[in-house]
């Protein structure tokens, strides 16, 4: 009995050590994906895409009963008619929303991107990390579409993340909200530098650290990529400062940031696959907010309200 237990403990110990070694070997940042992983990811990408599509439709379906709960006293025929009309409206809303998203993407691709000198390709989000610790999404384009490691992912509202793994037909994107993400950034108004980090599982919050003490930092100021280092080009909007505080070391300040992009509700993204000389110079003034000085009426508003389209404008109608 005693010998049997000892054997089990030894076996468990070996298993744990083996798994810990495997964890270290496969930890984030390793270069390359094994052929088996690559084949599996490519195989499942279309199925994941279908499921995500279904999810968007189901979300509308689940919310539907709440919209008709007040119609309980109406007769059966009217209910049926209302349900049918609601169904059509929902479909219309879905198509309209998709049309708006694609229109914005097109505007971005033909408006902002050439001015900034970006060459872009669009991709759909087909999956997410199964756990709650990290912020990683899978997209339905890979090396066959010109995607490479460390390429920058964004949309018309701002920065989303960078590619950390790529196969023939899929790629994984490390979101800026992931705690392993770090983006060199600066505050647009005072050109104050800092580092923007993700906060684990936070519903859309970032933290900007290492802000020099004495720098004028306040609520509502816009944070953009600084271009320091080689990964993220300069000038991509990240978010807006919510609060500031002194770091524990006492040497720097830090700030909580609300990102412009709602990374929890992404459906389509764009990847910078190349760059060229900016068209007509860098006409920042003609770009829509938060990319440039245009639509200054949106400047004081929160990214969430811009995303929700509370006010018509170039960003969201």
């Amino acid at each position, binding site marked *: 009995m005693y010998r049997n237990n000892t054997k089990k403990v030894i076996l468990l110990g070996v298993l*744990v050590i*083996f*798994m*810990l070694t*495997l*964890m*270290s*070997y*496969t*930890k*984030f940042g*390793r270069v390359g*994906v094994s052929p088996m*992983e690559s084949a*599996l*990811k490519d195989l499942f990408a279309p*199925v*994941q895409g279908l*499921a*995500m599509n*279904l*999810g*968007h439709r*189901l*979300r509308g379906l689940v919310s539907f009963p709440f919209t008709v709960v007040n119609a309980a006293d109406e007769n059966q025929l009217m209910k049926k008619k209302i349900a049918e009309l609601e169904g059509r409206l929902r479909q219309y809303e879905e198509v309209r929303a998709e049309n708006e998203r694609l229109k914005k993407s097109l505007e971005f691709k033909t408006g902002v991107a050439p001015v900034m000198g970006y060459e872009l390709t669009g991709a759909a989000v*087909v*999956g*997410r*990390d*199964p*756990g*709650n*610790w*990290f912020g*990683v999404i899978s997209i339905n384009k890979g090396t066959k579409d010109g995607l490479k490691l460390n390429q920058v992912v964004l949309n018309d509202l701002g920065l989303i993340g960078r590619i950390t*793994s790529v196969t023939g037909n899929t790629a*994984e994107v490390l979101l800026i909200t992931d*705690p*392993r993400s770090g983006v060199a950034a600066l505050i647009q108004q005072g050109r104050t530098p800092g580092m923007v980090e993700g*906060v*684990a*599982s*936070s*519903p*859309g919050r970032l933290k900007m650290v290492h802000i020099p003490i004495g720098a004028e930092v306040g609520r509502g100021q816009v944070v953009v990529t600084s271009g320091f280092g080689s990964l993220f080009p300069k000038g991509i909007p990240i978010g807006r400062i919510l609060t500031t505080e002194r770091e524990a070391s006492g040497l720097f300040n830090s700030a909580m940031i609300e990102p412009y992009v709602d990374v*929890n509700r992404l459906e389509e993204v764009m990847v910078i696959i190349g760059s060229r000389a900016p068209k007509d110079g860098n006409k920042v003034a003609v770009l829509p907010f938060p990319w440039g000085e245009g639509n200054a009426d949106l400047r004081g508003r929160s990214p969430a309200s811009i995303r929700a389209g509370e006010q018509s404008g170039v960003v969201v109608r």
Partner: protein
Amino acid sequence: MRFYLLVALILAALFFQVTLLNFISLWGVKPELVLIIVSFNAFLRGSREGALVGFLAGLFADLAMGSYIGLNALSLMAAGYLVGLTESKLYKDSVLIIMVLVWLSSFAAQLLNYILLTMVDVYISPGVALFNVILPSATYTALVAPLFYGSFYRSNQKGWLYVDSKI
């Protein structure tokens, strides 16, 4: 047959976790369906099978994203083992008991995840880990668990998951 059905259930749960569950995330977290199945199975079948199924389920979850392979395998194995210890000690018809068990197993699995992550250089502040991930995740998962327990329990007693022998 039972083993294959369990594997199919786990893969289906994982598939939902990677895709559809993102649309019902609350406080930035989504329920852990895979952990729910591991906990149910361990509660009804004991610690040995609980640990084995937990290990397999965790391995599938690790392979789904391709990094830190072993992270979920170890944490779900531990969760399955711990829940399995209660197999012959608790009343199995109570929804409240299963909710508490799932909450505890999720808490334990996430806590172990946190410790293991620090071992591979992923540092998250303890406060953020506890209040942004561990507690919301355990609570959401425990609230969702009763929706599936009845079906799983009946299937285990006299349905497709019923067999005399253990895996």
